[in-house]
């Protein structure tokens, strides 16, 4: 298969990018929140909703057989995409949040006891914080936090001290949705394992911008959402090591997760179905398989080089703006920029950018503790995807300058 190494060819596959917003060509720089969908994903969703709609795993009829093939095919695609060892290790969920909640319930109830510690960082998204706060209040475990420095880098120098014998689980983002730095997860995983702790990697941003190999990382869990990876909303993945998933008790019961059921008791189904109670979003999951096909169709070397060029351009231009503070500066950065400009409220700037056709995020970005860490009530965030162009980056920079002129 010939790989795409031309931005225009990549963009052509995304109908949403062709629209105008507020009488201008849309510049979509809110990909950290959700990415647009390629035609392959859209077409499969339409096809399945208008034809191939039979409930999976249940019936002998043709429609059920066809959706089951598409659903399980997507599982295989995900397995290869992250290089998992076994298809039983790939659990479909509704997104990163659901995946983390699954682990926060099932792993905690099986492996975490009163007095144990769960280690996070202070830069986690609410969805990798609140489920653990809830788990701690159920189990009597405690939370502990690895700090980040002023630039947003993990304080690896403090890790050894924090990783004592009480730590049973470490749950961290590979790339923070605010800071955009590729964190040294491999180093952390190795240290955590030496200390006897398991590790969950929140890959919501990481899966989009890095090449993930769960065997090489050796993480115990890796979770991500479909919708940030050019797939449908309401889809997500929990990868877990087979031996752990086999020991964990599901937190949801229902159809499809059982072996045999009598009025008194039941037995679990084999992995992965054990954790997929009820009718899943099988159409979405199948279309996530298409999103992975899209990811596989891109020349990765080209995409990484292109992202790097746009990233250094934006970083250079932003740095020259008077009074700007960029949060998250590190060696390995993805094209995601959170910032504040002195005297300018983030929501004001975002409103004006929207009027200029530029979509960015503003506010706390579901990271209130990190906002407090930096002493701000919000930030502006521009987050790019593989289809964003240098021309869009220039429009973005010009629009910021214009917005700043209006507001100062």
């Amino acid at each position, binding site marked *: 298969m010939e790989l795409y190494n031309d931005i225009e060819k990549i963009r052509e596959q995304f109908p949403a990018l062709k629209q105008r917003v507020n009488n201008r060509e849309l510049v979509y720089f809110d990909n950290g929140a959700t990415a647009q969908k390629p035609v392959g994903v859209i077409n499969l969703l339409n096809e399945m909703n208008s034809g191939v709609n039979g409930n999976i795993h249940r019936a002998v009829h043709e429609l059920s057989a066809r959706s089951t093939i598409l659903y399980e095919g997507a599982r295989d695609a995900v397995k290869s995409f992250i290089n998992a060892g076994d298809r039983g290790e790939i659990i479909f969920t509704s997104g990163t949040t659901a995946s983390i909640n699954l682990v926060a319930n099932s792993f905690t109830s099986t492996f975490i006891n009163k007095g144990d510690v769960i280690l996070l960082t202070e830069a986690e998204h609410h969805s990798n914080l609140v489920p653990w706060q809830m788990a701690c209040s159920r189990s009597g475990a405690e939370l502990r936090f690895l700090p980040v420095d002023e630039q947003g880098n993990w304080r690896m120098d403090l890790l050894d001290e924090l990783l004592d014998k009480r730590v049973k689980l470490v749950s961290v983002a590979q790339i923070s949705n605010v800071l955009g730095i590729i964190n040294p997860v491999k180093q952390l995983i190795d240290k955590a394992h030496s200390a006897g702790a398991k590790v969950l990697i929140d890959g919501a941003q990481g899966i989009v911008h890095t090449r993930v190999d769960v065997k090489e990382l050796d993480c115990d869990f890796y979770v991500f959402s479909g919708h940030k990876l050019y797939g449908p909303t309401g889809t997500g993945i929990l990868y877990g090591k087979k031996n752990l998933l086999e020991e964990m008790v599901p937190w949801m019961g229902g159809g499809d997760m059982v072996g045999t059921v009598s009025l008194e008791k039941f037995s679990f189904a084999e992995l992965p179905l054990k954790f997929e109670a009820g009718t899943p979003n099988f159409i979405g999951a199948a279309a996530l398989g298409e999103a992975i096909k899209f990811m596989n169709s891109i020349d990765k070397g080209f995409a990484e080089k292109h992202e790097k060029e746009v990233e250094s351009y934006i970083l250079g231009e932003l740095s020259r703006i008077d009074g700007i503070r960029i949060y998250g500066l590190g060696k390995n950065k993805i094209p995601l920029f959170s910032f504040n400009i002195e005297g300018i409220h983030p*929501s*004001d700037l975002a409103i*004006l950018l929207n*009027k200029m056709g530029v979509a960015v995020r503003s506010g706390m970005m579901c990271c209130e503790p990190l906002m407090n860490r930096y002493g701000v*009530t919000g930030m502006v965030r521009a987050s790019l995807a593989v289809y964003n162009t240098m021309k869009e980056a220039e429009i973005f920079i010009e629009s910021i300058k214009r917005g700043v002129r209006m507001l100062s």
Partner: protein
Amino acid sequence: MTIKEVEQQIVEEFSIFTDWLDKYEYIIELGKSLPIINEKGKDEKNLIKGCQSRVWLAADYIDGKIFFTADSDAIITKGIISLLVRVFSGRTPQEIIDADLLFIKEIGLEENLSPTRANGLLSMIRQIKFYAVAFAANKNS
């Protein structure tokens, strides 16, 4: 002037703007020129928290009329607040309860009041109406 008349006046002021740029520049000017709450009023009690921006709203009930002072940390929000204060402040509770605020739509700023904006403006209007209902109930009791 009645609330409707003030609203009409604002609609006329905005009718001269032909594009969004002029309109927002005007709102930014309104926001900048109005220190509409004193520091004392910017306390936790008067704070309406949104994800995007924060709004403070204080109300005083004097001789049957409600006087509002308000502020925000975001200048566009503050500009729109100053329009709301102009419409609502110095009115009787009943006038406030009856106001429909159609002028916001007419001047093309309704997007800023949508629940998706989370900028505290929608909550501020709810709070203004709530004060009116509360003061009206107080008066009648």
